[in-house]
């Protein structure tokens, strides 16, 4: 009998209802919630320092929706929604379980927080310099940890496993490794489990999301897109599918596109658990919304663990105003020129300033592409550690309302605090992952 593993979320903002559908109707053995992107975790650390919760703001909503079904159906839950504060998330989960009258064994995985291992001379990959060269103290550092501690928690009888920065695919590999009894050096089988995790971890991106292109790639029921589940066979091959009651589609093409999502060399996809070779993978249709994947192979896991070091990124300021009708592009260009001159010549700003003409040249402006439109939105953007420049940019764009070219309307502006992440590696032996139990 195949092992059934569902995906309850593929990122922090993902919808709750499709997870509840899977928990209720998916006959799942395990339901895994992936919830961390490169910056989500660092933002959690900032929130924690400011006295807010450092774990996922959707933890309670998601668990409240699925736990009664999971208990009824014998489905166990794994998640990295613990973010910057797995123990805080564990406590919140224990309170929620008590409120729902559910008796659950809750495990918390700690050890991914490696800020204490980061020193001024720690090298950063992207800048080719050190942490000290960055000029600001790091606010957080988290290693991408693998599946082992989660397997230990499952072996200990956990109904819910809550972690922080475990690798996305490891969340799904953990139950596969436990149920299929995969040895820690069985690289081919670990790669097959990692492949299932990789295909499920972005939820709807394998069931028809991030895919539709009218006239070329049609997807039915996009307003009711379902989350995926995998039926994993004892040999590590799997069928990726979804509930028939949901919208979307699972086809060889949706699976192929997701196979290489955020992958560089397909023959060396590095995870904490295995260096997976996806170039050997076979993908074939196995019925309506059913796609079989098999034959991933693997090589020994990397010696060191990738670690994200987060720094205060200052403020991102974005202001927009629109021009429409005859001559819209000329008026928007004139408005952009006014903003540029005022920021640089009159206000003395000397950082990077981006001015987009949305409708003519924005997302693909740097690629040199232009299009014709009579409906143009000027967008000015800058990033600064000095809040003053963020405020000034918005003032300059807002003042175009009265002092800019004719017919400017619809000003909107916002300032977003930002976090910058850089990568480094830490020695695996220096990262000690532990399983703690909520009493």
């Amino acid at each position, binding site marked *: 009998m195949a092992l059934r593993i569902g995906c309850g979320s593929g990122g922090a903002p993902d919808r709750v209802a499709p997870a509840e559908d899977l928990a209720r109707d998916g006959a799942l053995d395990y339901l895994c919630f992936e919830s961390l992107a*490169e*910056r989500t975790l660092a933002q959690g650390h900032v929130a924690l320092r400011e006295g807010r919760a450092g774990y996922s703001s959707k933890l309670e909503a998601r668990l409240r929706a699925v736990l009664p079904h999971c208990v009824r159906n014998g489905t166990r839950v794994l998640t990295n929604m613990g973010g910057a504060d797995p123990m805080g998330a564990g406590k919140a989960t224990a309170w929620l379980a008590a409120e729902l009258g559910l008796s659950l064994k809750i495990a918390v995985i700690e050890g991914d927080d490696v800020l204490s291992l980061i020193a001024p001379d720690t090298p950063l990959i*992207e800048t080719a310099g050190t942490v000290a060269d960055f000029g600001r103290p790091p606010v957080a550092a988290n290693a991408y940890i693998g599946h082992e501690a989660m397997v230990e928690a499952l072996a200990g009888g956990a109904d819910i496993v809550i972690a922080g920065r475990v690798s996305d695919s490891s969340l799904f590999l953990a139950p596969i490794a436990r149920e299929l009894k995969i040895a820690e050096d069985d690289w081919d089988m670990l790669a097959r489990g990692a492949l299932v995790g990789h295909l499920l971890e972005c939820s709807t991106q394998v069931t028809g999301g*991030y*895919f539709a*292109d009218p006239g*070329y*790639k049609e997807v039915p029921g996009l307003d009711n897109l379902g989350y995926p589940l995998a039926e994993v066979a004892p040999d590590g091959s799997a069928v990726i599918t979804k509930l028939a009651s949901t919208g979307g589609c699972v086809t060889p*093409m949706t699976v*192929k*596109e*997701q*196979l*290489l*999502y*955020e*992958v*560089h*060399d*397909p*023959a060396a996809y590095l995870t904490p658990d295995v260096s997976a070779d996806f*170039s050997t*993978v*076979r*993908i074939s249709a196995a019925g309506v919304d059913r796609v079989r994947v098999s034959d991933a192979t693997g090589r020994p896991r990397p010696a060191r663990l990738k670690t994200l070091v987060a720094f205060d*990124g200052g403020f*991102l300021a974005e202001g927009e105003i629109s021009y429409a009708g005859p001559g819209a592009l000329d008026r928007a260009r004139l408005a952009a020129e006014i903003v540029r001159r005022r920021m640089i010549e009159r206000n003395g700003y000397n950082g*990077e300033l*981006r001015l*987009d003409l*949305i409708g003519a040249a*924005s*997302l*693909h*402006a*740097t*690629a*040199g*592409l232009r299009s014709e439109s009579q409906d143009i939105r000027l*967008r000015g*953007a*800058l*990033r600064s550690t000095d809040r003053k420049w963020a405020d000034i940019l918005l003032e300059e764009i807002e003042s175009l309302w009265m002092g800019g070219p004719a017919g400017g309307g619809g000003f909107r502006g916002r300032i977003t605090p*930002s*976090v*910058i*992440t850089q*990568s480094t590696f830490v020695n695996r032996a220096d990262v000690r992952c532990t399983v703690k139990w909520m009493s």
Partner: protein
Amino acid sequence: MTRRVMLREIASARAGDKGDISNVSVWVYDPAHFDSVRRSLTAERVKAAYPELFGGAVTRYDLPDLHGLNFVMERGLEGGVNASLNVDAHGKSFSFLILALEVEID
């Protein structure tokens, strides 16, 4: 007889981001087109099409059994999510930069 078509007519694509590295995988609908796309859509061709944007190294990885090509653009995201001032800091739309290119097919 060869003819020129926009890649979008014969292939699908998806963009992903990691730091300042963009990757776009390209998948032909009809396996019969794979060899000609492979010939026509080289890494050099992609880099040359958008030199301002793709200023770093462009590498292509081939998956002949699945009829796919993976283009990896180093320093291809204007600094990446952390630093880019592009509306689309992840480069999610970059798949359509590749799909907009013309290729020669047999």
